[in-house]
């Protein structure tokens, strides 16, 4: 399977009090349409990934609202939701729509406007992406649920908080160089350790901020892109989804591994590549511990060793596989429904060679995105390849 990436667009990722959800969607969407060189009337289907407009913004039917303001009416449009995996799920549906042969050109948008509410309200809304009726009645939040995973990982593999802090150092090194990132500062292991406690053992520099942003892609049939050789020849060659555990209480490290490993194994087979072939990866890390878990799930390191790459350089820009050159969610922030789409846009920029100075890898050809959601409930893998001269 090859689905062409005709255009990409994204907004800055930051707190944007002057912009509404629809402003963000139109900014990213128009960017992708312009980059694709099409007009809105060419879009035959629109998938809008958005987690919580009902709670964050008191508005619903985001897909239909976006269709109107992007000017794609009468194309079909729908809102997609799968916790923090939402943007990746919108992308999956876009890929499936093209691969099925039903459509020639479709649009995928991910968007979230989180900062209209106070943190305490937003935290409560985010917690609805887990079982807020039962398990989270105990006072758990998303950071604290993941903190339990971090402690489990440290206990089982005999690691210290300092060992895990290297992941934040690496992400912030690159986030500081990404003009689209929310947090743009570098930090040391000592500064990570000194940052405020959020949910022990997770500290502030190991937790993503709440961010307003949107990202968008225009996808097309392979032939349409192939017939425009002047455009960057980037294709999505695998799209695989999975579900996992819905409860932190019963989520084991093996479950966390399977959440990515199972769909990644399917994705590698689908694209005809192996983990060793991957040059650049964007791996979900709304909390730092999720990056080593993702590195292990994708097969870049053995279980218990995914944290080492940030410490020894093997997941830095010149390493065996460059992980989160965008600064990851730790620096870009995690605009819930946008995140999966932003990961895709960031990898596509890498393959096009248009990533910002300081975070552009040396001529990468194959990239992967791994997005997850819920306590351990959603796994989403996409593989992207630059395929020229055929």
């Amino acid at each position, binding site marked *: 399977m090859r689905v062409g990436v005709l255009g990409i667009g994204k907004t800055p990722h930051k707190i944007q009090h002057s912009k509404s959800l629809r402003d963000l969607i139109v900014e990213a969407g128009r960017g992708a349409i312009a980059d694709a060189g099409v007009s809105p009337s060419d879009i035959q289907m629109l998938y809008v990934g958005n987690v919580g407009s009902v709670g964050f913004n008191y508005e619903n039917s985001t897909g239909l609202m976006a269709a109107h303001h992007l000017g794609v009416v009468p194309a079909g449009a729908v809102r997609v939701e799968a916790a923090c995996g939402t943007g990746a799920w919108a992308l999956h549906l876009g890929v499936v729509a093209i691969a099925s042969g039903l459509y020639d050109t479709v649009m995928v948008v991910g968007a979230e406007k989180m900062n209209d509410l106070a943190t305490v309200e937003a*935290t409560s809304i985010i917690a609805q992406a887990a079982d807020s009726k*039962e398990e989270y009645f105990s006072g758990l939040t998303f950071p604290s649920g993941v903190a*339990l995973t971090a402690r489990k990982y440290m206990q089982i593999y005999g690691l210290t908080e300092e060992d895990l802090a290297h992941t934040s150092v690496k992400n912030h090194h690159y986030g500081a160089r990404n003009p689209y990132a929310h947090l743009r500062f570098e930090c040391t292991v000592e500064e990570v350790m000194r940052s405020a406690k959020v949910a022990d053992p997770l500290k502030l520099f190991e937790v993503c901020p709440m961010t307003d942003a949107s990202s968008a892609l225009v996808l097309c049939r392979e032939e349409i892109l192939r017939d425009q050789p002047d455009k960057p020849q980037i294709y999505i060659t695998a799209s695989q989804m999975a579900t996992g555990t819905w409860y932190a209480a019963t989520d084991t490290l093996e479950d966390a591994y399977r959440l990515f490993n199972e769909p990644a194994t399917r994705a590698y087979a689908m694209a005809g590549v192996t983990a060793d072939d991957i040059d650049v990866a964007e791996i979900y890390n709304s909390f730092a511990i999720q990056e080593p878990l993702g590195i292990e799930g994708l097969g870049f390191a053995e279980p218990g060793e995914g944290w080492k790459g940030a410490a020894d350089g093997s997941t830095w820009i010149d390493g065996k596989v460059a992980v989160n050159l965008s600064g990851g969610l730790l620096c870009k922030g995690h605009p819930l429904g946008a995140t999966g789409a932003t990961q895709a846009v960031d990898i596509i920029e890498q393959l096009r060679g248009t990533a910002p100075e300081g975070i552009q890898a040396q001529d990468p050809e194959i990239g992967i995105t791994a997005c997850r959601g819920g306590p351990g409930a959603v796994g989403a893998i996409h593989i992207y390849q630059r395929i020229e001269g055929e």
Partner: protein
Amino acid sequence: MTVSAIEFSRLGPPKLRLYGMRCSSCGGISPWWEKFHCYKCGNDKLTEVYLDGRGTLTNYTVVYYPPRDFLGQEPYVVGHITMDEDVLMPAPVVDTALEDVQVGTRVKATLRRMKLGHEGDIYYSQKFVVDPEAAA
């Protein structure tokens, strides 16, 4: 996170009395929310079984930024307690200094005020304290 009073009338029982769901096939006990099938073997015949209320703290976190309903309680400990019946329960651990909370501590359940709803309504549920018998 928020529940209405009407909803709590449905959710209440498992929060006021500590119980799990015993599988008629493998005999394993799942957390109370597994009403529909056994988490361990998938069998769909389960019966409620009351738990004795004692267990061991096997994991914990300290919440510094709580959801709205828990405002004012922070920082507070949420633990994973492996009950003596071999089922894991997530619950706050209270009446203990943060620095004294340790994996391996024996704890017992106690009915406490859990949180406040929007209208000032009070929700009760099971919290855990250090088991005085084990500590003695």
